[in-house]
């Protein structure tokens, strides 16, 4: 209970603070929603009228509180670009981003743990050396470059996978794999290290001395310990993963929140920008929260 409370106690003021900082930051920027909505030919009176209508003539803090009040009621304002409700557009795109994050985390865990496990079990063999080298190399490669090359190979040259959009499950494969690529080397490394550490622990020696089968030692004694450090590591990397998800969404033209956020930055669509940043932050906190729950479940020393 304590852990859950702590997370919520940190999350709520943080989100408020973030929305305030973004609000004030965009306040500093030249131009506002009124000038973004009107075209060049609009007269000064028209602009002033629109400003009064949108409530832009009021004090910043008043406007912030009104915005916050709206957000709490699910009203994120209107996009200056499309004229549509920000909440609606976010609602349409959110499931896509959640799917992409889930798929990427699944792929990253499977590949990362697989590689780490292999190199730990075959410690000091050609497998171990090979995987360690590949992992070091993988850490140095920019993910978007890998994505560009994979698109060229699997989508353009071989034609096995679709390139852009999200119309079918196949559309998910390339973006999810490329997003996962950020995490795979790190997970592999942490798996290898924590497994090797566990292999050398006293209680494992004891279990061996008792004559317990190796397979059982790995599944019953070592895996739970390794799982804790792996999940903790994934938790620490969530923030990086979210950034990477957004970049992949842009590269693959995937209809998620990251792409929306980047295009809102390009268009200086401030209402949209505020809504999307807030949503992405909430999403990040939610994933962190789930990771916390999993760690608490795996680690009997942590009580919820």
């Amino acid at each position, binding site marked *: 209970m304590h852990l859950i409370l702590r997370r919520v106690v940190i999350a709520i003021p943080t989100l408020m603070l973030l929305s305030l900082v973004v609000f004030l930051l965009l306040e500093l920027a030249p131009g506002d929603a009124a000038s973004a909505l009107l075209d060049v030919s609009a007269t000064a009176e028209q602009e002033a009228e629109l400003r009064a209508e949108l409530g832009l003539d009021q004090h910043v803090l008043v406007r912030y509180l009104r915005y916050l009040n709206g957000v709490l009621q699910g009203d994120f304002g209107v996009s200056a670009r499309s004229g549509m409700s920000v909440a609606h557009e976010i609602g349409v795109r959110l499931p896509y981003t959640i799917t992409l994050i889930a798929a990427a985390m699944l792929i990253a865990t499977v590949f990362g743990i697989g590689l780490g496990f292999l190199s730990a079990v075959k410690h000091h063999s050609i497998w171990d050396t090979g995987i360690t080298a590949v992992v070091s190399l993988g850490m140095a490669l920019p993910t978007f470059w890998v994505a*560009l090359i994979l698109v060229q190979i699997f989508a353009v040259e071989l034609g096995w996978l679709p390139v852009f959009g999200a119309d079918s499950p196949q559309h998910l494969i390339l973006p999810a794999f490329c997003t996962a690529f950020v995490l795979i080397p790190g997970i592999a490394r942490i798996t290898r290290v924590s497994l090797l550490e566990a292999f050398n622990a006293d209680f494992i020696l004891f279990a061996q001395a008792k004559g317990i089968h190796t397979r059982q030692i790995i599944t019953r004694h070592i895996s739970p310990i390794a799982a804790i450090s792996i999940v903790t590591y994934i938790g620490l990397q969530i*923030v990086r993963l979210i950034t990477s998800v957004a970049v992949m969404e842009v590269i693959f033209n995937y209809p998620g929140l990251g792409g929306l956020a980047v295009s809102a930055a390009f268009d200086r669509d401030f209402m949209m*920008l505020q809504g999307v940043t807030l949503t992405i932050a909430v999403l*990040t906190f939610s994933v962190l929260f789930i990771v916390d729950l999993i760690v608490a479940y795996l680690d009997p020393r942590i009580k919820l």
Partner: protein
Amino acid sequence: MNITYPHVIDVRHASPTPKRFHLRLPHMTTLLFGGVLLISATLAAIFAEQITPYDPTQMMPLERLHPPSLAHPFGTDLMGRDLLSRVVFGAQISLMVAAIATLISALPGIILGMIGGMYRSGFTLIIDYLMDAWMAIPGLLIVIALTAAFERNPVILAISLGIAGIPAVYRLMRNETLKQTSALYIQAARASGAPESYILLRHILPNTLPIMIIFATLRMGGLLIAISTFSFIGLGAQPPTPEWGTLLAESRDYFHQAWWLMVFPGLAISLTVLGLNLLADGLRDWLLPE
């Protein structure tokens, strides 16, 4: 009569026994390999004007999309610009932005981290909370908010990435300071009346230096990737500026006709980052053997 106490040492100056940094062969190879990669990238960036055969923005319409040759070792791009020159000038922007971002994260991170590790007070609790909160905000949001509010250029990108990196430096510095303050020699220094500022600057700072250098080296690698990534999606350097990310963005639609446009800038990023990572690994094994 003047009595001396040979067994009493002045604890004010008693640091832990200085470590002997032994270099062993495996460390040497990683250090050397990483160092060579990084130094060549840095030298290329510094002497870009002297070593490049062409002006990176000079267009040669008759030499569009030429494959790698002796005249153009990396080939030419769509406008007939020499790719080698553009990649070398790209190193300049990438390394400069990474260095600025590192400085922006390091200064507040180190100072606040030391204070946070030394003292417990309302102020440090608030800082602690803010850093925790800041850490949970994806760097993307900071870059997006700042580029939308100001301008899409490398300077804003450097500032955003620097700001996004402060909490990580703070955490590390705070934990290291906490570790140091509980050490016996710090207690001895305190007991003998050394002022806090002296302890901070002469004992704690030098002792956290190795780990901070290793951290900064690793961080630079991550920053180089982030810089090219954000430039690639258009939130950093803008074309026609030769930057590794923008070069790759320009290469996107021409892979079929001109593979070199996608291969060489990507290799430049990867090799520089690999150099930094190897250097960090080598430094860690060398400076922090435990």
